[in-house]
């Protein structure tokens, strides 16, 4: 589309819509600097909630856990998911349709059902709930998303360039490392980005597979919001939003430079 200016009401509507999206986030950020502990009314400016946050051992521990789970599950899911994407986009094999169906499960099944099913599974095989079960669960829901994203990239992939490489004398391995992988790398990276975010963000499945001892950042935020709403939650949220903003901005800049 594009060309021709949109009508004035649509432009006003868009401005209102963006205000609706951003005012809550702005309020959240502003109130992270509030001196009032109950955080209902604005009382005065302080940075002390950030220093409370940085000394909060629970938060530090939860952040560590979250990062470990996210990194491991992203690496494994990206590897397994990319291989599956290659298989599905370039090969035909028995059970193809079944494999494809398998990939749609986490999109079609509500998270709460996946959460309780994993809980039942781990309890039944006597696997102690903790960081390991969370990571295993995250890998499971991340694989299909990585595959979906990488497949979309492979969709327009021209097999002729692989054939050309092999005609020029490269073997299959060399062709893969020198030709195929560099071409699909942007897709693999965006699949990994999605997996990382899904893992960092996940509350529901983590909640069911965490067990009593292990906390992640989303679980911690939930219980803070539920039980003790102080500006510390706002400070944590502010840092989270800013991190996302900066990471996305860098991604955007890199992308526009490449194209």
């Amino acid at each position: 589309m594009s060309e021709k200016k949109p009508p004035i009401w649509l432009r006003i509507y868009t401005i209102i819509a963006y205000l609706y999206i951003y005012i809550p986030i702005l309020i959240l950020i502003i109130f992270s600097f509030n001196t009032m502990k109950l955080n209902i009314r604005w009382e005065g400016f302080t940075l002390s909630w950030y220093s409370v946050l940085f000394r909060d051992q629970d938060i530090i521990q939860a952040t560590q856990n979250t990062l470990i789970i996210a990194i491991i599950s992203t690496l494994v899911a990206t590897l397994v998911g990319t291989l599956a994407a290659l298989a599905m986009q370039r090969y035909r094999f028995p059970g193809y349709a079944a494999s494809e169906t398998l990939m749609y499960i986490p999109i079609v099944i509500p998270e709460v059902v996946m959460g309780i099913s994993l809980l039942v599974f781990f309890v039944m095989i006597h696997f102690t709930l903790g960081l390991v079960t969370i990571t295993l669960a995250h890998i499971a829901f991340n694989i299909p998303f990585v595959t979906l994203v990488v497949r979309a990239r492979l969709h327009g992939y021209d097999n002729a360039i692989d054939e050309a490489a092999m005609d020029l004398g490269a073997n299959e391995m060399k062709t893969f490392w020198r030709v195929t992988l560099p071409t699909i790398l942007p897709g693999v990276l965006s699949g990994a980005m999605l997996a990382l975010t899904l893992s960092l963000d996940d509350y529901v499945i983590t909640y069911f597979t965490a067990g009593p001892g292990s906390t992640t950042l989303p679980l911690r935020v939930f219980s803070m919001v539920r039980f003790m709403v102080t500006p510390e939650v706002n400070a944590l949220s502010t840092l989270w939003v800013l991190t996302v903003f900066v990471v996305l901005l860098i991604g955007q800049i890199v992308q526009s430079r490449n194209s």
Partner: protein
Amino acid sequence: MTTTQAEENNKRVPLMKTIRENRVAQGLLLISPANIYLFLLMVLPLLLVVVLSFLSRGTYGDVVFKFNPSNYTRLLDPIYGRILFYSLEVGIETTVLCILIGYPLAYYIARAPARQRSLLLFLILVPFWTNFIIRIYAWIMILRAGGFLDDVLQWAHITQGSLNLLYTPTAVMIGMIYEFLPFMILPLYSSLEKIEFSLLEAAADLGAPPWKVFLRVTLPLSVPGIIAGTILVFIPALGMFVIPDLMGGAKTILIGNVIRNQFLTARDWPFGAAASMILMVLTMVFTLYYTRKAGFGEDLLV
């Protein structure tokens, strides 16, 4: 290489050679890690839930291996019927409102000049990538008694006391829409963006008024986006339990809350499993119906 030579080689290093020559074997080798993993950690657990839904609850909240179909008949109780109906209502309302609110916005972004477009899209993505409990918390701050909304309305002399919006069904709807709006906007945008502008121009040149161009050309061409967005919004909305937990009161119990409670507080796993089965069947029927109507795949990816 001729066939006979290949066969010769096969005899020498059978397995490696088979894999190198046989595309079926290669494909299977590449797909099997994913298939095995997903079978063990997704299909098997779901099958366990199916079995569990027909078992009995022991005295101490344990599971007893005794066939018990009453988990399902219990769901026919009007209390649960009402909860199920309310969940469907919330799911449908959330989806419809997200389409209505998101469509004009996606349309505007799709028609904006390229430079503006990437900025506008970026601004949609930031909340989309931000933790969803944080987004709910932002609205709790706004809606709670003496919160931002009350302050603004009192300052403008529109209301006197507090609206007491938090912990009501309205609060749950506000939370749901804010939560899922980006999931609707992104697929809508990607299908609107693909529409050739010349098509709209042609329709206008042939004398169609703008509303007719929209109804006859733009809207039908954006159906894949609407369908993808509906799947991305309706299914998670139907199974949601976090938003009613944090923003709703005693009356806003969804099927997701029932399932969560049976597994973690009431400890009646078989009954919780039966409730999960109902939810799963509902979403599957819904997706099958929808995917039959239109292709399912690329528009889901943004």
